[in-house]
C-alpha cells in the first residue's frame, strides 16, 4: 500500500521539537510516517502526493474532552436559543430574539414536519423582551397538535393548550410547578421535572429519546467534523450492553470519522461493580471506541443555582445546591476506583464540590498512590488558587469550562457569583502556572461544539456583552491550542497516540482555511474549518 503525502500552507504540529512543517506522510492504515519539509518525505519508496490542502493549514485533530452525545440527538427538536447555531447537517439556525420570531419558527417547522408534536429546545426567556412565553403564544403555533418548548436550563418548559390537556392539567390543577396566571387560568409554564414529566411523557419528548440512537451517533460525528474534531468524549453514558453493541457497530463502519470516548456513569452500577465493569470495557476498546474511563457527578450547575458553593454562596438568587452523590459515598467510590486503577472524571462545578472531590482524592491517593493516574476534575469552574495548589499536589488534571466565560459570563458577573469570582472562574492561567495539565471544553450541547471558539474564550475571556472577566487568567494562543489538542488528549490518556503531529501517531488532522497565527488570538473564533483528515482520509464537513 502506497503512503500519501499531504502538503499544506502550514502544519502546526504541537510538537515542541518541530513546531511547524509543510508536509506530512501518512500510511494507508492511518499512521503518520514522516513530518517536515518536501525533502523529508523520502525513504518509503513510491509515494502518492495529495496537494488539495496546499493552501490550507493543518493541525492535529482537535480533542473535545467534555461533550455529550445529546449534541447529536437534540437537533431532532427545533432550536430556539439566543445564539446563532449550526446543526450537524450544516443548517444555520439564527438566534431567537422575540416571541413572534419563536412562534414563526415553530409554525414553519410544523409545516415541514409530518403530523405530531412540535418541540423546541434551547429557549432562554432572559434574552426575549416582553411578557414571558405562555400557552397562548404557543396556541398560535397550533391548536390541534401538542407544542412544547424546553428552556435552555432544562428545568422549565412552556406548553400549548393541547399539550397541557394531554397531561390532564386545567385551571383547577393545584400542583407545585404548574404556573397559573393571575386570573387563575393555566399559564403554560411548567417548572421543575415533576411538573414537566406528565407533558413530556405524553408528547413523546422524554430524555430517553435523546440518548444515542444511530442517527445521533452519526450526527455527533457530523458536528465534530465541522469543528475539526477527530476525538470526542461522550462524558456520561450508562453503557448498557445494547448501547455498547450499537456503538461498536457504528464506530466500526469504515466511514465513521470520529474517535469516541464514552465515560461510564459511576451511578449506573453499584459502587463495587463500577471498577469491574470499567476494566472489562477498557479491554474491549477499539481504535475508534475508547472505553475504560469513569464519570462521577457531584453537584449541579452554577447557572441553574444547583452547584455546591462554599461560603458566601451565590451572589444573588436562591441557592438550590444539590449533591448527586453524598460526600461520604464519593470518598468510598473514589477510593475504590483509584485502588483498582480506574481513571476518574469528576464533575465539580461549585467550589464546595471541587473541595469534596479534592478531599476524596487526597484520601484515596494517600492510601494508594498511583503514578500517572490522571484523575481529572471536570468543569472545576470556581476552584480558587488554594484549591488549585492542592490539585497540583495531587497531580490531577483539570478540564475547565472556558465557554462559560462567553456564554454565561455576564450572568455570572451580575447574578450567580458576582464580579470577583466571575473574574477568576475557569482559571486557565493559574492552572498552567501551577503545572496542572489543562484541557478546556464546550460541554456540547450546553454550548456549541467548537474547540477553536473554546480556545478563543480561554484566550480573551470576553463575555457576550464584551466585558472582560479577569485579564490575568487569560492564556496565550499557544497554550490554548495545546489545551484543545495535546492537553485534552492527555486527560484521556491518549496523548501518546494523538493530539500532536508526530511520527507514529494517528493521522488525524483538523483542516483549516485560515491560519490561527495569522488571524491572531483576538480573531481565533473566526478561523474557518474545512473538515478533518481522519486516519489519513480527508473528510469534508457536510460530505456525509
Amino acid at each position, binding site marked *: 500500500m502506497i503512503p500519501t503525502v499531504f502538503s499544506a500552507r502550514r502544519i502546526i504540529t504541537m510538537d515542541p521539537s518541530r513546531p511547524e512543517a509543510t508536509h506530512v506522510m501518512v500510511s494507508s492504515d492511518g499512521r503518520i510516517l514522516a513530518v517536515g519539509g518536501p525533502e523529508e518525505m523520502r525513504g518509503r519508496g513510491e509515494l502518492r502526493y495529495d496537494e488539495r490542502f496546499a493552501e490550507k493549514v493543518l493541525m492535529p485533530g482537535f480533542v473535545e474532552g467534555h461533550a*455529550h452525545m*445529546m449534541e447529536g440527538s437534540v437537533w431532532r427538536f427545533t432550536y430556539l436559543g439566543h445564539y446563532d447555531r449550526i446543526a450537524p447537517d450544516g443548517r444555520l439556525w439564527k438566534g431567537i430574539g422575540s416571541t413572534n420570531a419563536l412562534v414563526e419558527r415553530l409554525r414553519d417547522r410544523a409545516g415541514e414536519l409530518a403530523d405530531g408534536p412540535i418541540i423546541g429546545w434551547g429557549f432562554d426567556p432572559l434574552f426575549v423582551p416582553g411578557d414571558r412565553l405562555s400557552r397562548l403564544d404557543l396556541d398560535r403555533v397550533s391548536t390541534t397538535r401538542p407544542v412544547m418548548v424546553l428552556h435552555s*436550563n*432544562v*428545568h422549565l418548559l412552556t406548553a400549548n393548550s393541547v399539550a397541557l390537556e394531554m*397531561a*390532564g392539567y386545567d385551571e383547577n390543577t*393545584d*400542583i*407545585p*410547578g*404548574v404556573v397559573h396566571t393571575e386570573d387563575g387560568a393555566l399559564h403554560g409554564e411548567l*417548572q*421543575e*421535572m*415533576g*411538573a414537566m*414529566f*406528565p407533558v*413530556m*411523557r405524553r408528547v413523546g419528548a*422524554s*430524555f*430517553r429519546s*435523546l*440518548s444515542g440512537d444511530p442517527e445521533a451517533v452519526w450526527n455527533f460525528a457530523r458536528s465534530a467534523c465541522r469543528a475539526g474534531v477527530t476525538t470526542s468524549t461522550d*462524558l*456520561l453514558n*450508562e453503557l448498557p450492553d445494547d448501547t455498547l453493541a450499537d456503538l461498536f457497530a457504528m464506530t466500526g463502519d469504515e466511514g465513521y470519522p470520529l474517535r469516541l470516548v464514552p465515560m461510564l*456513569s*459511576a*451511578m*449506573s*452500577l*453499584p*459502587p*463495587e461493580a463500577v471498577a469491574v465493569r470499567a476494566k472489562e470495557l477498557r479491554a474491549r476498546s477499539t481504535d475508534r471506541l475508547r472505553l475504560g474511563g469513569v464519570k462521577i*457527578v457531584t*453537584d*449541579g*450547575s452554577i447557572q*441553574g443555582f*444547583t452547584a455546591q458553593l462554599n461560603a458566601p454562596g451565590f451572589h444573588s438568587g*436562591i441557592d438550590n*445546591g*444539590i*449533591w*448527586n*452523590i*453524598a*460526600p*461520604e*459515598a*464519593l470518598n*468510598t*467510590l473514589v477510593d475504590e476506583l483509584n485502588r483498582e486503577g480506574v481513571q476518574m472524571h469528576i*464533575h465539580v*462545578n461549585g467550589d*464546595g464540590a471541587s473541595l*469534596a472531590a479534592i478531599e476524596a482524592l487526597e484520601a484515596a491517593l494517600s492510601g494508594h498512590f498511583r503514578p500517572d493516574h490522571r484523575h481529572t476534575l471536570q468543569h472545576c469552574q470556581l476552584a480558587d488558587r488554594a484549591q488549585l495548589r492542592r490539585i497540583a499536589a495531587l497531580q490531577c488534571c483539570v478540564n475547565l469550562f472556558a465557554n462559560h466565560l462567553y456564554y454565561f459570563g455576564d450572568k455570572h458577573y451580575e447574578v450567580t457569583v458576582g464580579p470577583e469570582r466571575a473574574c477568576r472562574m475557569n482559571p486557565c492561567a493559574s492552572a498552567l502556572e501551577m503545572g496542572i495539565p489543562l484541557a478546556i471544553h464546550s460541554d456540547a450541547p450546553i454550548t456549541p461544539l467548537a474547540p477553536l471558539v473554546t480556545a478563543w474564550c480561554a484566550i480573551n475571556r470576553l463575555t457576550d456583552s464584551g466585558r472582560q472577566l479577569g485579564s490575568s487568567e487569560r492564556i496565550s494562543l499557544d497554550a490554548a491550542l495545546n489545551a484543545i489538542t495535546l492537553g485534552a488528549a492527555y486527560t484521556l490518556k491518549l496523548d501518546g497516540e494523538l493530539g500532536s503531529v508526530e511520527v507514529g501517531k494517528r493521522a488525524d488532522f483538523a483542516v483549516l482555511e485560515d491560519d490561527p497565527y495569522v488571524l491572531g488570538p483576538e480573531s481565533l473564533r473566526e478561523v474557518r474549518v474545512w473538515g478533518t483528515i481522519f486516519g489519513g482520509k480527508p473528510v469534508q464537513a457536510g460530505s456525509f
Partner: protein
Amino acid sequence: MAPLPVNILCGYLGAGKTTLLNRLLEQRQERILVMVNDFGDIAIDVSLISRRSADTIQLSNGCICCTMGGGLFEAFERALRFGNKVDRLVIEASGVAEPRRLASFALAEPDLDCRAVVAVTDPQTLPERLADPRIGKVVESQIRGADAVFLSRADIASRASMRRVARLTAGLNPLASQHRALDGVFMQALAAPHDGRSLLALAPERDHQRLFASRTITLGPAPERGRLAEIIERHRHTVHRLKGYVRCAGIERPLLVQLAGGALSLDPAALPEGMQVNRLVAISPDAKALARLEADLGLAVA
C-alpha cells in the same frame, strides 16, 4: 386504571431506609414495586433489599441539566409500565435526595397517587448530620418535606438521644407524625396522602411557590375540650391543616388535636418527649383565616 400509590422513603446514608423497606416488603400484604434512587450510597444498599416480594427498578440519581442523564424520567416511565400488576410503588430515595423533587413527580403525574413521604432518621447520628456544613441542609430538607418521621434503631438508641431527636425533628417539622415501630399506626400514616402544600408553608426560606401560610397559635392553660373542638370545627373549611398537643381541663392525658382533610380528631396520646403542649400549628391558603382562628381561640379558651 386507578393511579398507582407512591411512597417515598428519604433519609441520609445509614439512616435505616433499607432496613425499613425490607421490613415493609416482608409484610407481603401487597405487591410492591421498589425504586432505588441511587448507587452512590453505601455499597451494600442494593443487595440488602429483599427481592422476594418486590420488583426492583434501579435508577441513577441526577439533575438532567447537570448530568445529561434521563435516569429519573426513565425510571418513572418504567414504573408506570407495570400498570396494575403492582399495588404500590415505594421509592427509596438516595441519601442526598430532596423529597420535594421526587414527590413532585408523583403529585403531577395523573397515573401516580402521591402518598406519605417518610423521613428515616438515625437518632444516634442525626444531630451530627444536621450540623455538617456540607449535608446539613439536605438532611434538614428531608425532615421538613416529610409527612412522617421514622426514628430507626429505637431498640438500641439511648433514651436521651431518642428524646433529643424527637424534639429536633418536631421543631423542624411540627406537622409530621413520629414513629418508632412498623405498626398499624405507621401503616396508616403511610397510606395518607402527601401534604406538600402544608409542609411548604413551614419552610424557613422564602419560596415563590409557597401558596399556603402557617401560624403557630399558643393556647391558654387548660382549655375546655368541647369548646376547643367547636371553634376549630367552625374554621374547618378555611384551615387546611392543624396539629398540636393540648392539655384540656379535666382530662388527664394530653390530646393530639389534628385537622386533616376537613376531619377533626382529638385523641388521647402520649406527649412526645420534648414536645411543647398547648401549641397548635395551623396552615391555610388564606393568612387572614389563620388570624381569625387565632382570635377565636384566644378569646374563647385563653
